[in-house]
């Protein structure tokens, strides 16, 4: 068994690259006068969220790692550490990422952790670092369990996950418009991921890919960036604070307040945790489906265009 194998913590080693790339993007924007926007407090909040993410990994990382090592002790399988195995692990882990990310937008308990990544109204390389502090509490580490039980070493699984995260850093930019057609067809790109960060009705809940955009095409969640509709970044209801603590915990507080309302059934309390963001027991709020349906109702000509299925009817 390859118990003693260690893999580098690539995300931490990439920190100098992150800083250099942010400065390069900023320089490009300032010199060219296009390719994105920066604002001091927004960027500072994003960077502090990134630092907090690293800190939470140091403090809470043992929970996931301990879980993975238990699985590794249980499984009789060991695929070793050849280059082909690492490559296969990278691809399968990207599939795992797609589903975790999709759950992150469709299950409020997981969204509570992921929402902060979408809380900036900007889209630049600092936005990439606006990462969660509370990922451990989503229990999404279970999604890595199949990989480990199949015989991929936990260290390798975390290593390829780190590479996945580093890949996703550079796509958080407006400085790159479109890449060659073959690349856009297979890989996640700045264009595809800009759409993912959009609050426009048609751009809600799509393009969940980490590295390979083919997962979205395969599972029917791909929406292309339209030249006719500029992406409007941020949340459906944008935050009124730059305080990192509020950014990190606001949706958890929202869940707590909703769940503890008086007069709800236990099923309704549970649904406030597991239904899509915007769900409410009395229909007083709206999910992304409701927002899309309302948009189609107001703009019937848009029905059937990307991101707006014709069968979305307003309730």
């Amino acid at each position: 068994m390859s118990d003693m194998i260690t893999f580098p913590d690539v995300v931490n080693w990439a920190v100098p690259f992150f800083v250099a790339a942010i400065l390069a993007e900023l320089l490009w924007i300032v010199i060219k006068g296009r390719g994105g926007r920066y604002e001091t407090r927004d960027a500072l909040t994003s960077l502090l969220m990134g630092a907090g993410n690293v800190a939470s990994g140091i403090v809470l990382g043992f929970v996931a790692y301990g879980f993975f090592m238990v699985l590794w002790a249980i499984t009789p399988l060991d695929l070793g550490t050849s280059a082909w195995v690492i490559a296969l692990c990278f691809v399968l882990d990207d599939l795992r990422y797609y589903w975790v990310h999709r759950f992150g937008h469709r299950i409020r308990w997981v969204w509570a952790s992921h929402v902060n990544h979408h809380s900036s109204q900007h889209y630049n390389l600092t936005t990439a670092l606006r990462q969660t502090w509370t990922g451990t509490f989503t229990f999404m580490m279970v999604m890595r369990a199949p990989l480990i039980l199949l015989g991929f070493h936990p260290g390798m699984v975390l290593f390829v996950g780190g590479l996945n995260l580093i890949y996703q850093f550079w796509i958080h930019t407006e400085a790159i418009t479109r890449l060659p057609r073959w690349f856009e067809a297979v890989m996640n790109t700045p264009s595809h991921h800009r759409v993912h960060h959009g609050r426009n009705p048609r751009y809600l809940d799509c393009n969940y890919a980490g590295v390979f955009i083919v997962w979205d095409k395969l599972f029917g969640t791909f929406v292309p960036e339209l030249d006719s509709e500029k992406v409007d970044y941020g949340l459906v209801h944008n935050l009124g604070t730059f305080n990192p603590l509020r950014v990190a915990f606001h949706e958890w507080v929202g869940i707590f307040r909703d769940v503890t309302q008086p007069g709800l059934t236990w099923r309704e309390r549970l649904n406030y945790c597991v239904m899509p963001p915007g769900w409410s027991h009395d229909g007083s709020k709206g999910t992304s489906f409701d927002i899309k349906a309302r948009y189609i109702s107001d703009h019937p000509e848009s029905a059937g265009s990307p991101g707006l299925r014709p069968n979305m009817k307003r309730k």
Partner: protein
Amino acid sequence: MPLSVLLPLVVCGIIGIAVILHLLGLSRPARLEGSARASAVWLREFPDAPPTRVILSHDGQAALIETEAGSGVVWAMGADTTARYLGGARIRRTAKGLRIDLPDFTAPHIRLRLDPDEAAQWPSHMKDSA
């Protein structure tokens, strides 16, 4: 990477980038250039509640919005904007204008820079919702 290297790198990186952005003049707040812009900003957050009246602050960094569903404000959030209804708000005069405390974890305190006349008049428009 050892913590003794990572920590100073992260701290210096964050401070350095923030200082550069500020020196480049990228800390300027958004300005609402006219009532139409303020309406658009409100509708961006609340598309189902068209404004019936818009009162823009003297510096264009905030606007008081009246709708059939109640009053609200739009205000600059850095280079961008956001908006909230004023239900449950506590409104206080400050040296620079008004402070609005909302029962909203995502927008607990709104500090509006208003001139003395605005600071005197706006609360009367807000009180119906508060």
